[in-house]
């Protein structure tokens, strides 16, 4: 009889659910077995039961069921588990001298199926083809061996600072294969064969299983300090950084800090290799700066405060007159790479102080100073590029925000965000979170959140322009349109994509302008109205093709890092083709007729290196701009190398003029 009773369990709901239902007081506490089930079971066992007997039995079964559940929970408790298992229940049954129920020991839940007619639930019991099972090729693996592992969880009652088990476990579990891989890769990268190196770097960039080796690679990279005499090795190590940074499977974590410090070393330190002027350490610094900005944009969020730390150290180098010019150069390109905001915050306020030193160097024509002077020109060029970008971006941001404000296009906001993420060199990384979103319009937010330079306040564009102009004079290849300007900006002017096409002030358009020694190799014509979105922005600088011969200016020959508008890119091929085409398109100001809001400017970079020996890189003579309607007739009489002339008229011009355009 008891046997019959127990078999009924199968028909009730799942065993564990009984345990659950017993736990909550308010609910129906028990599984009930209806007398029909009892009768059914009895019938199947060949016994006829009366109704009353069945009812009694049903009740008793319920009771026994509860009892068994109760005692089975004891087994669960002592096994220190939370889950009641079939095994527990079977134990309880066994101790009650009842047959255990077999066939329900599976780990995963048994699916109940219901039969539509009549509320009957049953467990699907499929036939298993033993032959198939026996001949199956996927033999299940044995369970892994039980083992004990110890780790220090808390030191002196405090949590481990290291994330639990990442580093030590990685070190411990370094398999032979990984070790071999590590050796091969490092050998290939630091070895002689450039092809092997390429393969190794490529693999480093895409291998998903090298997380355990990360600390080792980082260690290798930190060896930059010991090879500072060898540009080639430094270059290779930087390439290694790049590969690691680009590997999507690696979580760099706090190793970012270590990588950044290695890169910073290459940017800032007066490398042993730079003693020999024949060594092109400038390129290395450029590359490292680019890498820095890339690390930032992809991994900047891993280490908090990194951005400001780096800015601080760059600032420190810049403000240290004892440091060699190549360090200063590094600081400037570093700032440049970190974006125009970094330039605005650090380089720009430092410029007046720094200028004196630089000027002194540049003005010294003695032979002994030749090398230093050449270096000085490098710095000069770097600063110029940086501030030009600054001016351009600032103006752009103003116009962007103005546009956003006027036409309130959601697209522009989205575009701004996308822009912030996609274009590394242009604004600081999203570290101070508020700045990420405000990347463009952040001038509205004085001294962004988390900015350590509390005293820093954004300088209005005109003032900035004036000051910079006072330093650089016409070397500053950014001009602002004197069109009807922002003040009279028509609020609801529809975007006119055609403007851009009208704009390009290509040299062909001004064949009459004659210039000597035109140095400008690329120019940018950004019309904020163009397409009405910042999609005109160039792609983020890629680190791909930075050949050793690359020169400072992100010149036309390297298409990667130059900010170039569509209009100008079409010309670049032409431009680089022949020096004869090097016509300096001074400044092209849109006439009011071409479209009211269009505001365009050009960046003048310079191409330097082989062609011009760095001696007179900025010897540009500007002919007066063709007096377009709004441009004041202004003659650019001064000639380089008169750098940093502070001419009163210039300033006045700038001030007075600019105020027309930017009612800030």
């Amino acid at each position, binding site marked *: 009889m008891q046997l019959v009773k127990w078999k009924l369990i199968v028909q009730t709901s799942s065993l564990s659910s009984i345990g659950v239902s*017993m736990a909550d*007081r308010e609910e129906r*506490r*028990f599984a009930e077995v209806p007398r029909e089930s009892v009768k059914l079971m009895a019938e199947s066992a060949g016994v006829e039961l009366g109704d009353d007997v069945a009812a009694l039995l049903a*009740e*008793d079964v*319920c*009771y026994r069921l*509860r*009892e068994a559940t*109760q005692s089975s929970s*004891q*087994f669960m*408790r*002592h*096994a*220190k*588990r*939370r*889950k009641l298992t079939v*095994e527990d229940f079977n*134990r309880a049954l066994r*101790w*009650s*001298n*009842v047959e255990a129920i077999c066939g329900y020991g599976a780990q995963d839940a048994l699916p109940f199926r219901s039969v539509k007619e009549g509320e009957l639930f049953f467990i699907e019991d499929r036939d298993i083809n033993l032959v198939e099972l026996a001949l199956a090729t996927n033999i299940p693996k044995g*369970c*892994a*061996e*039980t*083992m*004990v*592992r*110890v*780790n*220090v*969880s*808390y*030191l*002196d*009652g*405090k*949590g481990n600072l290291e994330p*639990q088990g990442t580093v030590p476990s990685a070190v411990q579990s370094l398999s032979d294969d990984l070790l071999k891989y590590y050796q091969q890769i490092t050998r290939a990268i630091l070895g002689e064969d450039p092809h092997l190196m390429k393969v190794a770097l490529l693999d480093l960039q895409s291998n998903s299983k090298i997380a355990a080796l990360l600390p080792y690679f980082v260690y290798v990279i930190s060896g930059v300090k010991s090879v500072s005499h060898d540009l080639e090795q430094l270059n290779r190590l930087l390439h290694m950084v790049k590969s690691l940074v680009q590997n999507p499977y690696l979580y760099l974590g706090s190793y970012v800090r270590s990588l950044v410090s290695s890169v910073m070393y290459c940017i800032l330190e007066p490398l042993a290799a730079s003693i020999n002027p024949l060594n092109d350490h400038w390129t290395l610094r450029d590359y490292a700066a680019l890498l820095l900005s890339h690390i930032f944009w992809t991994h900047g969020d891993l280490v908090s405060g990194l951005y400001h730390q780096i800015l601080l150290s760059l600032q420190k180098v810049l403000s240290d007159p004892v440091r060699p010019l190549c360090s200063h150069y590094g600081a400037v390109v570093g700032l440049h790479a970190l974006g125009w905001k970094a330039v605005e915050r650090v380089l720009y306020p430092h410029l007046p102080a720094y200028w004196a030193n630089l000027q002194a160097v540049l003005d010294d024509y003695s032979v002994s100073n030749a090398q230093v002077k050449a270096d000085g020109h490098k710095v000069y060029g770097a600063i110029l590029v940086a501030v030009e970008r600054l001016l351009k971006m600032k103006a752009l941001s103003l116009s962007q925000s103005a546009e956003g404000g006027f036409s309130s296009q959601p697209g522009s906001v989205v575009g701004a965000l996308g822009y912030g993420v996609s274009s590394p060199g242009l604004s600081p990384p999203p570290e101070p979170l508020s700045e990420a979103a405000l990347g463009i319009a952040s001038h509205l937010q004085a001294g962004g959140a988390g900015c350590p330079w509390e005293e820093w306040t954004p300088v209005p564009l005109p003032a900035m322009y004036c000051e910079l102009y006072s330093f650089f004079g016409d070397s500053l290849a950014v001009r602002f349109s004197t069109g009807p300007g922002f003040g009279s900006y028509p609020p609801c002017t529809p975007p006119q994509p055609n403007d851009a096409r009208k704009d390009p002030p290509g040299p062909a358009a001004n064949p009459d302008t004659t210039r000597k020694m035109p140095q400008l190799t690329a120019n940018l014509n950004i019309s904020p109205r163009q397409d009405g979105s910042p999609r005109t922005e160039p792609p983020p600088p890629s680190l791909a093709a930075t050949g050793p011969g690359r020169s400072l200016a992100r010149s036309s020959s390297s298409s990667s890092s130059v900010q170039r508008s569509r209009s100008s890119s079409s010309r670049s091929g032409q431009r680089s083709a022949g020096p004869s085409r090097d016509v300096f398109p001074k400044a092209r100001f849109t006439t009011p007729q071409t479209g009211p809001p269009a505001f365009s400017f050009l960046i003048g970079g310079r191409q330097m290196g082989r062609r011009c020996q760095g001696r007179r890189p900025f010897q540009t003579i500007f002919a007066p701009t063709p007096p377009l309607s709004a441009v004041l007739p202004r003659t650019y009489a001064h000639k380089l190398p008169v750098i940093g002339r502070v001419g009163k008229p210039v300033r006045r011009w700038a001030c007075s003029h600019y105020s027309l355009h930017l009612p800030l």
Partner: protein
Amino acid sequence: MAAVQGGLIDTEEEKDIKTEPANDGCGNNNNNNTANDGRLLNASPGSISSGGSNKPATGALEDQQTLLAVLQFLKKNNLSESVEILRREAGLSEDTEDSKGLDSSGAGSGGAAGNVDSESGDANSLLSRVSVSSSAVSASAVQAPSKAGAGEDQPDVNVVLSAYSQQGDPALYDVYYSSLKKFIESVLDCHRAELSQVFYPLFVHMYLELVYNNHENEAKAFFEKFSGDQECYYEDDLRVLSGMTKKEHMRGNETLLDFRTSKFVLRISRDSYQLLKRHLQERQNNQIWNIIQEHLYIDIFDGMPRSKSQIDAMSGSLAGEAKREANKAKVFYGLLKEPEIEVPLDDEDEEAENEEGKPKKKKPKKDSMGSKSKKQDPNAPSQNRIPLPELKDSDKLDKIMYMKEATKRIRLGPDTLPSICFYSFLNAYQGLTAVDVTDDSSLIAGGFADSTVRVWSVTPKKLRKVKSAADLSLIDKESDDVLERIMDEKTASESKILYGHSGPVYGISFSPDRNYLLSSSEDGTVRLWSLQTFTCLVGYKGHNYPVWDTQFSPYGYYFVSGGHDRVARLWATDHYQPLRMFSGHLADITCTRFHPNSNYVATGSSDRTIRLWDVLNGNCVRIFTGHKGPIHALAFSPNGKFLASGATDGRVLLWDIGHGLMIGELKGHTDTIYSLKFSRDGEILASGSMDNTVRLWDAMKAFDDLETDDFTAATGHIHLPENSQELLLGTYMSKSTPVVHLHFTRRNLLLAAGAYNP
């Protein structure tokens, strides 16, 4: 056992214990039971049969029944003296029969059961001697009433339940209860809390009466109506009760038996009691009055009624609070004097240089380390109260090691918390059930649900077996490194697996000398394993039901085990039968711990009480109530004064053993506490729980805050400060790893162990 006891007392020879098996055997043959042991004897069959509650009831003997019925009658009329006398007189002849009867009837459950009975009979004859002659009467008397019924139910439920045969009008139960409820709710606040204690036992008994008298529907209605009023900590019991709606169900139900066979103990102030009594007499509420008379034990005290919080702190156990007398016996909680061991100070350069003063300096040095060992603690038992094994040379070496380590121990405190190392069992597949670590933290062992025991070495030293006998004969026994030579290098491995059990291993314990390992299992056995040969040496059979826990004495040789049969047993490794049986718990014994001086054993139980047993005479000397769930962890403080206990309710309670008082409540865990451990100096209490955390508590502060004025000590009324949060020094999460075991190394590094459950 009686013989054992006698041997111990009379001869006072420690080594006699070795010859005891013979005595035991003899003792078993003549089961002379005096009357007093009746209760214990009865208890054991009761517990055994209730353990196997679903077995058909063992056959009953008519004579016995008659006697028991008479006893019942006497008891019913509160003729307790006569009960005692009758027992004592009838015991001799009747209990022999009883045990024989059980022997024959219990054949189904295995011969061991018979042994058990006779064992206990032995013990009891001794106990009676002790209790009659000594002042322990009160202690034993405590048990008497509570145990009296236990044996009686089994023969025939009807006899037990005869009290229920009196018929009241079932419809009126509701009225009775409501009117009492109304009354209690209307009394003064100070009395209300105390009188409210009556609700639960009354409710239970009235319900059972209804069920017994086949008033199923009334019983259900009654339950529906009033079950919600009961304190939440009785929920588990209520759940069991609610399932019981037929007279047939009462047969063999453990919980029911607990209610029936033990009087529910209430502590009520005299004033409150008078109030209740007057009310019931005025209202002629005989139904309730009868129940109170028959099934409740009201411990009346003089003085202020207790507050609700005071009552709540102490209640919650299956059978109410402990009676005050239950905790009056003297407990020698002090530590034993440590044997004098010369500590070689070779590592102390400074001392070595000091030629002359060296021997003198040595002594104070040693004193400072073992200051407690120098002077005899007034609270300590006499050194040979329990015969302890003599120290072997290896033990002395180990003691020296221990002392050396102890000098490097970090003194812990609220500001210097221990570092925690976690031993994670990987790939345990939810099967890890028990863990133990050797005192020197060199080995770790796990008990598993797949019946295996696994031992790991956590030092670089691998585990090696002793060579086979043939190989051993080839060894030069005179050589200095003979101990090294006997080991078989080929067998060296990091871990060893011990096969032998046929059920999950629930308890595991290393011997202090690291030569043996004990494991207790669901298969009802405790096994002793050699860690030299990694084989099973002995299987101790006696429990017959799952053995939930076992532990070695801190001095080795003895061990204690407790399980589903509600009896804790004390064993010596060289005896195949238990030396003592500690019975009194009303439900499974879930954990067992030795007192640091090895003279006492603490057991925690599913009946939500903790009992402290005297190893010497098997008496229960302390009953601690206050937990609201089964107790799963116990820990003595290193100085032996305090006991900490953890239960499924997630609370840790602290007890003063000397005064028999609850002195602290540590709230914080959210799930069952499975392990407790004091730091080596007792400043920190670590608790590990199913909620995946380890918590550290300021034990020093908890004990210091305690004020034991005379009144508190006398009445046992405690005011617990709500200071869990102040005492909690830290909460440490693990990564989905329930903490199964905690261990402080000799230098006070905390080791935690558990299985990673992804």
